C-alpha cells in the first residue's frame, strides 16, 4: 500500500517536473525565435520539408474524408428533402472541425514524429553537443526554425485538407448521387462566413494545433534519453501527447468559438 502511494507520488512528481521543464524549454525556444528574422532561409527550408513530408497523406485523407461526408450528409439530408444543402454541410464541417483536427492528427503522426526523431538522434550522436562547442546554439539553429515552421505549415495543410475534402464531397454528392451542381456551390457560397468559419476553424485552430504539436515534438526530441530506446520512446510520446492535446484543445476552442 505504501509502495503504491510512494509510486504514485513519484510518478506525479516526475510528471510535474517534466511539465515544468517543458514550459521552461518553450520559453527558451520563444526567446530564440526573434533571431530567426535574420535567417528566414532556415524557416523556409523547414516549412518546405515538413509541408512536403505531410502533403501526400493530407491530400489523400482529405479526399476520403470529404467523400465520406458527401455520402453520409446526403443520406441524412435527403430524408428532409434538403440535399441541396450538401455543399454547405460538407464545407462547414470540414472548415470548423474535421479539416483542422484530422490534419493535425495526421501532422502529429507524420511530421511531429519525424521532428522528435531527428532532434533526438542529433542529441544521441552528440551533434547538438558538437554544435554547442562550435558556438552555434542548437536551440537557435535547429529547434527554433523547426518550431516556427510547423506553426506555419499546419494551417496551410489544414486549408489544403479542407479544399480537397470539399472537392471529395462534390465528387460524391454531385458526381455520384446527383445533387444539383449549382445549389451545391451557391448554398456554400451564401452561408459560409469568412470570420466565423474560415478564420476560426482553419486559421486559428490550425495555428494553435501547429504550435502545440511542434512544441511537444521538439521538446520530446531535445529531452530524449540519448539512446535508441530513448528516442523511440520519445517519438511515441509525441504522437500520444500531441493527439490528446489536439482533441482536448479542439473541444475547448469549439466551446469558446461557436457558443
Amino acid at each position, binding site marked *: 500500500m505504501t509502495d503504491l502511494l510512494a509510486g504514485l507520488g513519484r510518478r506525479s512528481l516526475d510528471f510535474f517536473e517534466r511539465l515544468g521543464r517543458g514550459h521552461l524549454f518553450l520559453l527558451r525556444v520563444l526567446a530564440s525565435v526573434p533571431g530567426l528574422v535574420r535567417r528566414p532561409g532556415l524557416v523556409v527550408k523547414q516549412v518546405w520539408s515538413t509541408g512536403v513530408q505531410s502533403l501526400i497523406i493530407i491530400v489523400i485523407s482529405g479526399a476520403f474524408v470529404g467523400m465520406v461526408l458527401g455520402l453520409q450528409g446526403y443520406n441524412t439530408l435527403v430524408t428532409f428533402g434538403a440535399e441541396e444543402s450538401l455543399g454547405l454541410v460538407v464545407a462547414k464541417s470540414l472548415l470548423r472541425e474535421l479539416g483542422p483536427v484530422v490534419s493535425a492528427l495526421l501532422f502529429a503522426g507524420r511530421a511531429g514524429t519525424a521532428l522528435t526523431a531527428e532532434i533526438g538522434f542529433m542529441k544521441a*550522436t*552528440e551533434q547538438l553537443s*558538437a554544435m554547442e*562547442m*562550435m*558556438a*552555434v546554439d542548437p536551440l537557435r539553429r535547429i529547434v527554433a526554425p523547426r518550431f516556427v515552421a510547423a506553426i506555419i505549415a499546419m494551417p496551410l495543410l489544414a486549408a489544403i485538407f479542407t479544399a480537397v475534402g470539399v472537392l471529395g464531397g462534390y465528387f460524391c454528392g454531385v458526381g455520384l448521387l446527383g445533387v444539383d451542381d449549382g445549389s451545391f456551390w451557391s448554398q456554400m457560397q451564401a452561408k459560409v462566413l469568412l470570420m466565423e468559419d474560415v478564420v476560426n476553424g482553419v486559421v486559428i485552430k490550425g495555428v494553435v494545433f501547429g504550435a502545440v504539436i511542434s512544441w511537444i515534438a521538439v521538446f520530446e526530441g531535445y529531452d530524449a534519453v540519448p539512446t535508441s530506446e530513448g528516442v523511440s520512446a520519445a517519438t511515441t510520446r509525441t504522437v500520444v501527447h500531441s493527439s490528446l492535446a489536439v482533441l482536448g484543445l479542439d473541444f475547448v476552442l469549439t466551446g469558446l468559438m461557436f457558443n
Partner: protein
Amino acid sequence: MAITSDPTQSETLVRIRNLHFRRGRRAIFDGIDLDIPRGRITAILGPSGTGKTTLLRLIGAQIAPTQGTVEVDGRDVHRLPLDELYEQRKRIGMLFQSGALLTDLSLFENVAFPLREHMRLPESMIRSLVLMKLEMVGLRGARDLYPRELSGGMARRAALARAIALDPMMIMYDEPFSGQDPISMGILVRLIKTLNDTLGITSVLVSHDVAETCTIADYIYVLSGAKIVGAGTPQELQAEHSPTVRQFMSGMPDGPLPFHYPGKAYLDDLLEAPR
C-alpha cells in the same frame, strides 16, 4: 612564440583549481589542479573511464563542476554570461571522440558549417578555406561523401578539419589516434605538431596511447581514480618511480591501477543467487 612572449597575457591558458565533479554518487574528479600552458601540447593520459572526456567537457563549459573553477584565458568559463561563453567557444576547437559530424551534411558542408555560421564570407573564399582544411587531413577527394559513408578513422579526421576551420587558439583532441592506421596516425601526429608549432595553437590531447603521446606532448598529466597521479614531461614520467605511473606508462596489467569498473568482489558476484 609571439603569443607567449606577450607580457599582457599569462603563460597559462587554462587554469583548473580544486575541481570536483560527480556523476550520481560516483566522484569523477576529486579536487584536481591542472594548468595548460599557452602554445604547448599538453596531454592528458589515463585509463578508460577515468573522466578524460568529462574533463574536456568541463573546460568547454558544457557541464558544470560541483565545486572548483575552470579558467580559460583568465576567465572562469562557468561564470561567463552565455553570449561571452559562445564568443569564447569560437576560439576553441574540439575534436569529439565520436567525430560528431552533422549527418545531414556532406563532408564539405560539415567543415564549412562553422564558417557559414560565424562569418560572412564569399562562397569562393569558403571553398578555398574548406579545401585547405580537408587537404590537411587528407580528405579533399572525399568532400562530397556523407558521414555515413566514412570509416571511423576518416570521420575523426574530418571532424578535425572542422575543429580547425575557425583557426582556434586552442584545440582539444579527444582520442585523435584511435582507429587510425600507422600512416594516418603519423600524419595526424605531424599535423598536431605543425598546428602547434607554426600557428602557436594550444593543444590539449586526450589519449590512452602512451607511446604516440610521448612523442609529441610537451607536458603530460596522468589521471586515475579521480585524482592526478602524475605530471611531468614525457622524460620525467618515464623515469618516474610511482607504481601507478609506471604501470600506466608501461601498460602492465597488475598494479595499483584497476582495470575493472568499481564493484563488489568477483567471487561474491558469482555466488550471489539471482533474485
